[in-house]
């Protein structure tokens, strides 16, 4: 054995210290090298520990180690991430081992409901995405990290607003009126909903810094979700944040700057086109009213509201251990501008994790503390629409600067002109005024903290008890201000308006659980069981303040509260039992039962049980144990019942009376006015919606998991569907109440494939692909038989309903009139086909045409690594989904150009084709194929490796988000977060270019 001088010195020193510390024992020194079994390269950083002691060392860069042991032939344990742990008895002072690369896919630990599981032991449909696989680029809100990554998961951003929310759907959701949002669990604390009220919904997932997230598990089938019982029907997303580690403190700093710009604008007419339309119309009618209103400009109002938006994101974190205290702490600051001027999002966040262990590791403590402060400057939702419809013939010259600000506005003629409107405030406001003179700033403070104490009983080592106490506290406050020069806020009694709003939400949780783990060797069986009691309450406090008038530059003092705090709360108490059996490492059995009692229901309906069973059969172990071609093969079968109570207001079951909200609702008797007391509609029988899910899945891995994936088929049947149902007039205190009416069936197939076509030292290529097919069908919408039932008309423009819930059809299937076209292919206004051939075209000729839901969703991502470069691409697609182009439907008329209130407006380019003079919302002409493929992200990284004398590691990267979209859709963006498929000018999603640096030191 050759030992270098350096090593000799090291050994001597070690021996010296060993001698000092353990003088009473005999000492043996063992040394050796650790190499990779595959190619013989040395493996550094392998932990070599002496079994039964606390002695451990790490291998150096050459894979060498030396360790001292108290016995002659110590058992050494070699462990390293990515390799299978090996035990070797070192008989004569040396032991060199070849480590075998572990089946990473199999060894990955996945966070599941109330615990973790090795991926290979999963029996449910669970996909876990860890930080390295997250969607790259400039991502403000956590859920977007998952976009396109998981088969059957759709994440659709609401638009391009900085920090705005998304629609998240797992397997299309299971409900209609009740919420379809999955349950989100953050470090063991289920959180309620994803929004906080006030003006506009603020997105709560944006309060979590994506950089603090370790992994996100998406639980799809009932066997995985049923442990969350009454809130699990729409799937569960478990977010786990990063934890502290062992050893030396490591720091990470990353920074990113980004620039966002608009990709596409609403296709509207130009000033010249409007002029020629109005002039032609005037020539025809001989009336010059509108011609006289025309300006000479060609103003593109849309280009005036957008900007190149710069953003930056900086995060620093430290993790390691101080003494016995493993910790991680992070600080992040993100500042994102929206592409609409003044739209802004900033987030200051910090996360601290402490995970010490006490009493010989019997007591494990895990403390998470997350704080964030999000400030959003929100722009008026009408800006995009106003820019599309504002008169392009006008230059932006102020009409009366003092009174109405710096922008062109429609004012009645004469020196004392007032805004053109029907009811005081203007009906048409310059989009720039909406930006310049309206301000809505909301601040959200959120603290999520939980403390987990896990105690292993010393005299009964198979049992451990756990307490998890968590609090999620969110408070929102905001100020809305409309300046006095704003035409829409022009009233004799006041100019402008300010209002203040506040809301807090507090969610507290206490979970007490007992875990039992036992390996019964005689039966080759591993048992692990859980018993849990949980109580969680959600309290919302709303405060209402009176509006107050504002001067141009002054903010008057805030008015007093007009309502005392309105406290709304609900609570849920649960018991959970779960047993996992692993027999012979081949058969996996899971059974669970959750009992939930919820405050949203009457006593008689308060309790419900949610069972689930799942079986796993490791076919690899059974049939292919000795082949290397098949590295993994497992069959999963699962069944379970879950519930849904989101979307039910807290007190829907209770008979109660509400008072008038304001002074404007009272009635005069004699000389006094009396406020109202109104009995509220209620449904004492309301109960949980229940979804029964069956799932069959196959996980496979081929060639040492170079190719791996899974395929799942499922059926979800939702009964007692919560629908806001029409009730017979006179049967309740409203014509609709939320009731358990109707059924829904969802069948689907999901397929995930991950491959590594090239895996060489300097060249790697990974390719991931996922696909989901889903078909949702309404199977019942009433509680009794009705002849010729036309379903429930749900969605549409004003009261023209174009979407329906109809038995046998996909939810919100479009029901429209079949447009007749002329010889040149243009629609003939108001002419529809007489589909039932009864000689009259009426509502009996409405037909079902397409649906908003996609048949197939796809996600694809690939990563190529060459030496120090990495290149990644990610995209997603949606096939078979249609949208109702509401913008075209509502702005397609001559009267929108020649507005009857005597001003000129703009319309979509589609008007040139349709030439409609009236609104024809009911026409199928506006339903368009919105299938698309979007390349979400291209990112390029370069790893400098060690810099600054090996003290740090630097990686730089650049990315482009929202690279392109391929679609036939004619509107702004085919990707729409409306379940009903109505597209009405979303905030355009920008293209974002960002560069960043990541430094580990």
């Amino acid at each position, binding site marked *: 054995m050759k030992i270098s001088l350096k090593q000799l010195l090291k050994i001597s020193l070690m021996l010296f210290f060993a001698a000092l510390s353990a003088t009473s024992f005999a000492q043996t020194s063992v040394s050796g090298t650790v190499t990779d079994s595959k190619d013989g390269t040395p493996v550094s950083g392998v932990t070599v520990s002496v079994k039964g002691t606390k002695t451990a060392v790490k291998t150096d860069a050459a894979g060498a180690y030396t360790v001292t042991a108290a016995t002659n032939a110590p058992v050494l344990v070699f462990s390293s991430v990515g390799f299978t742990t090996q035990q070797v008895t070192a008989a004569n002072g040396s032991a060199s081992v070849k480590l075998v690369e572990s089946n990473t896919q199999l060894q990955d630990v996945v966070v599941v409901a109330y615990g973790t599981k090795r991926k290979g032991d999963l029996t449910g449909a669970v996909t876990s995405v860890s930080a390295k696989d997250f969607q790259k680029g400039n991502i403000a809100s956590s859920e977007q990290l998952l976009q396109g990554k998981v088969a059957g998961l759709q994440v659709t951003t609401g638009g391009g607003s900085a920090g705005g929310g998304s629609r998240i759907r797992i397997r299309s959701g299971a409900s209609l009126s009740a919420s379809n949002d999955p349950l989100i669990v953050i470090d063991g604390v289920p959180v309620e909903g994803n929004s906080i009220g006030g003006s506009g919904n603020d997105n709560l997932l944006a309060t979590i810094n994506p950089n603090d997230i370790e992994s996100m598990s998406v639980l799809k089938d009932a066997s995985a979700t049923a442990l969350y019982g009454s809130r699990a029907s729409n799937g569960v997303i478990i977010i786990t944040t990063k934890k502290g580690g062992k050893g030396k403190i490591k720091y990470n700093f990353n920074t990113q700057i980004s620039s966002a710009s608009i990709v596409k604008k609403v296709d509207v007419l130009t000033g010249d086109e409007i002029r020629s339309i109005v002039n032609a119309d005037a020539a025809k009618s001989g009336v010059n009213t509108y011609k006289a209103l025309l300006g000479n400009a060609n103003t593109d109002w849309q280009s005036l509201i957008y900007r190149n938006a710069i953003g930056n994101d900086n995060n620093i974190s430290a993790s390691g251990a101080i003494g016995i205290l493993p910790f991680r702490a992070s600080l992040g600051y993100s500042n994102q501008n929206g592409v609409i001027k003044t739209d802004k999002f900033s987030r200051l966040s910090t996360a601290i994790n402490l995970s010490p262990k006490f009493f010989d590791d019997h007591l494990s403590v895990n403390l998470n503390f997350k704080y964030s402060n999000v400030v959003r400057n929100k722009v008026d939702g009408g800006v995009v629409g106003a820019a599309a419809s504002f008169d392009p013939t006008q230059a932006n010259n102020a009409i009366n600067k003092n009174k109405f600000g710096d922008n062109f506005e429609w004012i009645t003629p004469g020196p004392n002109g007032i805004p053109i409107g029907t009811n005081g405030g203007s009906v048409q406001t310059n989009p720039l005024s909406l930006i310049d003179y309206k301000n809505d700033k909301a601040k959200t403070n959120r603290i999520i903290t939980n403390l987990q104490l896990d105690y292993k009983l010393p005299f009964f080592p198979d049992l451990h008890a756990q307490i998890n106490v968590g609090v999620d506290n969110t408070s929102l406050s905001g100020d809305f201000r409309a300046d006095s020069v704003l035409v829409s806020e022009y009233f004799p009694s006041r100019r402008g308006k300010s209002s203040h709003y506040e809301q807090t939400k507090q969610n507290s949780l206490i979970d007490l659980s007992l875990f039992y783990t036992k390996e019964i060797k005689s039966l080759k069986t591993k048992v692990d069981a859980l018993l849990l009691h949980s109580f969680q309450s959600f309290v919302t406090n709303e405060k209402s303040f009176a509006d107050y008038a504002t001067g141009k530059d002054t903010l008057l003092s805030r008015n007093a509260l007009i309502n005392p705090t309105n406290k709304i709360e609900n609570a849920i108490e649960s018991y959970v039992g779960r047993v996992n059996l692993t027999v012979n490492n081949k058969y996996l059995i899971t059974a669970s039962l959750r009992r939930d009692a919820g405050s949203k229901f009457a006593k008689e309906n308060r309790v419900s049980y949610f069972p689930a069973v799942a079986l796993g059969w490791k076919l690899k172990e059974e049939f292919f144990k000795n082949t290397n071609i098949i590295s993994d093969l497992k069959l999963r079968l699962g069944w379970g019942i879950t519930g849904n109570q989101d979307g039910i207001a807290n007190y829907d079951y209770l008979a109660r009376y*509400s008072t008038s909200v304001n002074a404007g609702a009272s009635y005069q008797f004699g000389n006094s006015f*009396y406020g109202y007391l109104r009995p509220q509609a209620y449904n004492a029988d309301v109960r949980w919606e229940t979804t029964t899910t069956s799932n069959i899945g196959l996980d496979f891995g081929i060639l040492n998991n170079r190719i791996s994936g899974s395929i799942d088929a499922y059926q979800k049947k939702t009964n007692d569907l919560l629908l806001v149902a029409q009730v017979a007039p006179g049967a309740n205190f409203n014509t609709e109440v939320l009731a358990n009416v109707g059924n829904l069936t969802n069948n689907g197939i999901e397929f995930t494939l991950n491959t590594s076509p090239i895996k060489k030292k300097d060249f790697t290529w990974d390719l991931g692909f996922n696909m989901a097919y889903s078909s949702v069908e309404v199977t019942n919408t009433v509680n009794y038989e009705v002849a010729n039932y*036309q379903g429930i008309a749900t969605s549409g423009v004003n009261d023209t309903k174009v979407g329906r819930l109809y038995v046998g059809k996909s939810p919100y299937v479009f029901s429209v009139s079949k447009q007749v076209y002329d010889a040149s292919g243009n629609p003939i206004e108001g002419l529809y086909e007489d589909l039932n051939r009864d000689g009259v075209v009426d509502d009996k000729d409405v037909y079902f045409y397409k649906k908003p839901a996609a048949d197939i969703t796809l996600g694809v991502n690939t990563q190529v690594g060459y030496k120090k470069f990495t290149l990644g691409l990610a995209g997603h697609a949606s096939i078979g989904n249609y949208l109702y182009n509401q913008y075209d439907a509502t702005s397609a008329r001559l009267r929108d150009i020649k507005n009857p209130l005597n001003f000129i407006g703009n319309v979509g380019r589609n008007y040139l084709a349709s030439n409609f003079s009236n609104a024809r919302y009911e026409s199928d002409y506006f339903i368009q194929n919105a299938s698309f493929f979007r390349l979400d992200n291209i990112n390029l990284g370069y790893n400098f490796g060690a810099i600054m004398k090996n003290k740090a590691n630097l990686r730089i990267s650049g990315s482009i988000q929202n690279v392109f979209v391929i679609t036939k859709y004619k509107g702004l963006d085919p990707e729409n977060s409306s379940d009903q498929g109505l597209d009405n000018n979303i905030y355009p999603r920008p293209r974002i270019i960002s560069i960043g640096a990541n430094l580990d030191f």
Partner: protein
Amino acid sequence: MKNNKITIISIAFFALLVLGSCAKKLDLFPQNDFTPEKAYSTASGYKSVLAKIYGSLSSTGNQGPAGAADITGGLDEGKQVAFIRGFFNAQELPTDEAVVAWNDETIKDFHDFKWTSADFYLKGWYARPIYNITLINEYLREATDAKLAERSITGAEASDIKKSVAEVRFLRAYNYWVMVDLFGKSTFITEADLIGTSLPKEISRANLFSYIESELKAIDADLAPVKTIEYGRVDQGAAWSLLARLYLNAGVYTGTPRYTDAVTYAKKVIGANYQLTHIPVNGYKGYEQLFMADNQKQKDEIIWAINCDGLRTQSFGNTTFLIHCAAGADFAEYGANGGWFGYRTTSSLVNLFADKTGNTDRRAMFTTSNFGTSNAQLALTDIGDFTTGPHVKKFVNKRTDNLAASDPDKNYADIDFPVFRLPEMYLIYAEAFLRGGTGADATTALDYMNKIRFRAYDDSYGPGNVGKVNSGDLTLQFVLDERGRELYWEGHRRTDLVRYGLFTTGAYLWPWKGGVASGTAVNNKYNIYAIPSVNRVANPNLTQNTDY
């Protein structure tokens, strides 16, 4: 051992927590709402519910002008389920008295006689009266003598509540009258029908007629005598007026005319100390004052009005609608801050007046600064064009005392909506007499007509007594025309035209009747509205009207 102790303590603690139930923590109640027990624990609670019952004819929810809507279900609370606006649309839009320029949903179908059972406006018009009745039934269940005693409400408070019981029964009868008139048969619920237990039954038109009649008679003794109760609440005069109106239309509702009864009750009202408003105030003539912001002063003529207030009873579907819908750029003359460029009338109504300018018969209120009554203006070339067709400036949110109306922004009107006015009773008397009712005579009938005419012509009969009616003029057609002149836009026209057999037939045509410029006869089924199909889905007990 220390560890053992900790373990035992923690297990005990744990077991306690697991076993100790939190079930009680699941009984939660909204902070600012009341339980029914609490709502009715005091007399003022009763009064607030009573305010809601009356107020649901004027407001559309628990927030003014909109919000916390009473009736949702995809309906626009101000546009489709407001009582006054709905009743106005139902009674005026399909007649010669109103057309609308808007293209809102199916609103044009009403003048065109094209409405179907799927119509959302119909859904709202049906829902509102039945909703009001549901509130009333609940109140009646809580206002029994036994419940008052149980809650220790006694003395003057108890007797006021007792009076209010008769009032809400009147209001229930009134809402049912709206159902009888618009839809014929109706959902039928009384205080015996509890909430959320069973599907309501249907009642036939004839049976509902009898029910309304018996209720109105039953409450007569409990209602306050005429003009003895605080403003806003109904008295015997309102019940008699409704009976008179009901009997006048009995032939339509049941097939059996009851003209003698109509005479009886019209006479009862006429004999009860009511008078027409005559005295001009600040230049506002007697008739004008009835439809102005301070018309609560006209208690002598208005038997019952639904109260509206620009600040305290706000809604987009009460008289606020009546001022805005008729106004365009001339909104200032309506005392409004903007026009909605929507509703006008037809030349058929205007032509009932010999002098359309309003200079002689003051009731001809068709001229504003922007619009006159020239032949060109009267020609309704395009319903969708607000600038064509005669305009109506009857409801005006200005005060006779020239003080400001209560809403400084002039958004919401103070005008109370008159449901029963004395002239209607005169007209019922005359018509019932002409149709053979006994207990009336020609001289009195003629006298009543001339009382109306005398006031209309500024306490004269106009130049050369053109306004005076002579005995030879007193025909059924004259009474109908006089009803048009006196009561237009007050929600009578459809009922009148149906009673006269002119609503659907070719015997009387007006511009754009049935969607044709010169007017056309339409299917007789339109004499009553369709039962909204969505209600029939929700309640299979309901049957459809013929031919819908």
